[in-house]
């Protein structure tokens, strides 16, 4: 894909000859220290969560459910390392629970966001490309779904079906796609009128081929921006649900239910509130910063506007 064929690329003076979209973006990203810092932080959080079982066994020497009733509300200490972030009301290691909670919260965020993306792109392409009655039906469906406050729908469904992490992921994945669809639909509307689509149709390319090989690559860059923001939003939603006692249910730790649990004991152990809260904040902040930085890198015209 050449840089001039896409409407998303600014007419920026080319720094190097025949620089592609991604190499251009990468070039700009390398100079964006804030975005790089955010990406690094997020990677560290993800890697630490993935390594949770290893770290629990070899570094902290604790499982996430192991109790020690002599060490309840243990303040943060370096010795033993298991109480690095303190102990909770049952003397469980906060840091180990936080790592395992990360597995759950990040899993829900990433997997549900990919589900949103799949549905959103599919329906958006179909809606924008075929227009007419198909578009009317999809648009009407989105309007209706958007009119039911999604947080209520989520609260009701999760209460009714008392979900585990996987069910919650699927529910969120099936509910949060409308924004992506609207975006993809709008972009497809504009793109399908352009010459290269006409050219593709003239040589007899099938509709699905035009949608996925010609239209999609042109919107893909900005979709990555939406993806980063979507993951952040989902992690916030999951933690809010778990905070209300309606998301991930103990004993499985998630950042939201750890915070919810700690809110009962905040006058005795404030550190139990701070660590999950700060982790959620950090993760979501990183994701939003990455989204912002990616957009600036991919489309410098929009720099600073968000």
């Amino acid at each position, binding site marked *: 894909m050449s840089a001039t064929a896409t409407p998303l690329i600014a007419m920026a003076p080319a720094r190097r000859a025949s620089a592609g979209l991604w190499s251009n973006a990468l070039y700009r990203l390398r100079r964006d220290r804030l975005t790089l810092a955010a990406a690094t932080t997020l990677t560290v959080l993800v890697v630490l969560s993935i390594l949770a079982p290893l770290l629990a066994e070899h570094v902290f020497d604790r499982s996430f459910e192991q109790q020690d009733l002599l060490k309840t509300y243990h303040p943060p200490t370096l010795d033993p390392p298991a109480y690095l972030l303190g102990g909770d009301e049952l003397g469980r290691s906060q840091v180990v629970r936080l790592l395992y909670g990360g597995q759950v919260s990040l899993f829900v965020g990433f997997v549900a966001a990919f589900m949103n993306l799949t549905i959103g792109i599919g329906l958006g392409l179909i809606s924008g490309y075929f227009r007419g009655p198909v578009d009317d039906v999809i648009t009407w469906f989105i309007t209706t779904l958007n009119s039911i406050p999604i947080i*209520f*729908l989520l609260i009701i469904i999760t209460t*009714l*079906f008392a979900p585990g992490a996987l069910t919650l992921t699927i529910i969120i994945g099936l509910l949060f796609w409308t924004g992506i669809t609207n975006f993809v639909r709008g972009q497809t509307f504009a793109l399908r009128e352009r010459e290269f689509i006409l050219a593709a149709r003239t040589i007899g390319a099938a509709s699905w081929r035009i949608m996925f090989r010609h239209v999609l690559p042109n919107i893909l860059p900005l979709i990555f921006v939406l993806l980063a923001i979507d993951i952040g939003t989902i992690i916030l939603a999951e933690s*809010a649900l778990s905070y209300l006692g309606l998301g991930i249910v103990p004993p499985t730790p998630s950042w939201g239910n750890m*915070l919810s649990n700690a809110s009962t004991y905040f006058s005795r152990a404030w550190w139990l509130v701070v660590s999950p*809260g700060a982790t959620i*904040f950090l993760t*979501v902040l990183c994701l939003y910063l990455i989204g912002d930085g990616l957009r600036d890198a991919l489309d410098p015209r929009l720099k600073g506007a968000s």
Partner: protein
Amino acid sequence: MGRYILRRLLVAIPTLIVISFIIYAVLALSPIDPLSAFGADPRVPPEVRENIRRSLGLDQPWPIRYVKWFTALIQGDLGYSFMSHSPVIGLIVQRLPNTLAVVGVAYVIGVLIALPVGMISAVKRYSLVDQVATTFAFIGFSTPTFFTGLLLIIIFSVNLHWLPFIYNSNLKIEDLGSFLQQVKQSIMPITVLGLFDAAVLTRYVRSEMLEHLPLDYVRTARSKGLRERAVILSHVLRNSLIPVVTLIALGVPAVFAGAIVTEQIFRVPGIGEMLVRAIFDGDIPVVAAVVFLFSVLVVSFNLVADVLYAVLDPRIKYT
């Protein structure tokens, strides 16, 4: 214009009917048992339980219950709570002032912060003010409100003992003293929500202004010798406010939804708190009514936003 509004209202009716059906179906098909409060009590014999079930109308199949509920609904009857046996509408009216006092005030404050900050941020782009505002905005919408709320409680209630952390809804404002008390108990919930709203809106205002600043009409205004102040306030701001106003209208229902969490943190006995409790109690009439009313709110504010857009921007033709 009148025709446009009428058409939109007519389109909204089938949407609301579908929504009401979805809400009721989800609730009816759920394993929720309105009798769960008695379920654990072995002293309640099965025939009594059956009688209660019948008295609540639960012996009928749910499509019939839905039709009955909906017919009553369009006549303005929201039904009776399974728990308190009082009319749902009364419960809502009783709770609404608490929600409005916190959520409404917070939203207004959020808007009042966002407009000037977003504007200055855009005009003085990359200045110190802009950088501080951007940093705060990013922190603002990345922090879960329940975390900010708990932090404030820990600092100002637990450690400093300055503010109460439980909202007293029985407080009546009669004199200066009780007014101050009301202010004291509302400060934290309003701050938490207001800052969150302000963070989100600031970014919108800023990006709208930024989009307008490089346009031709701005250059024209400058080149005909207008002072910068006039250019910004009566040209750029006016035009960029059009989408912002509609966004503010669209944000109203979302703010109510976000209030569920805030009401939970500060124990504000508002609509959101009532909803969460009703869900746990299996009080279907209350849940259905509250969620449906919220949907009505969303649909109406969508309409308000569209109409506002058309009124504010003469270039938009309503069809």
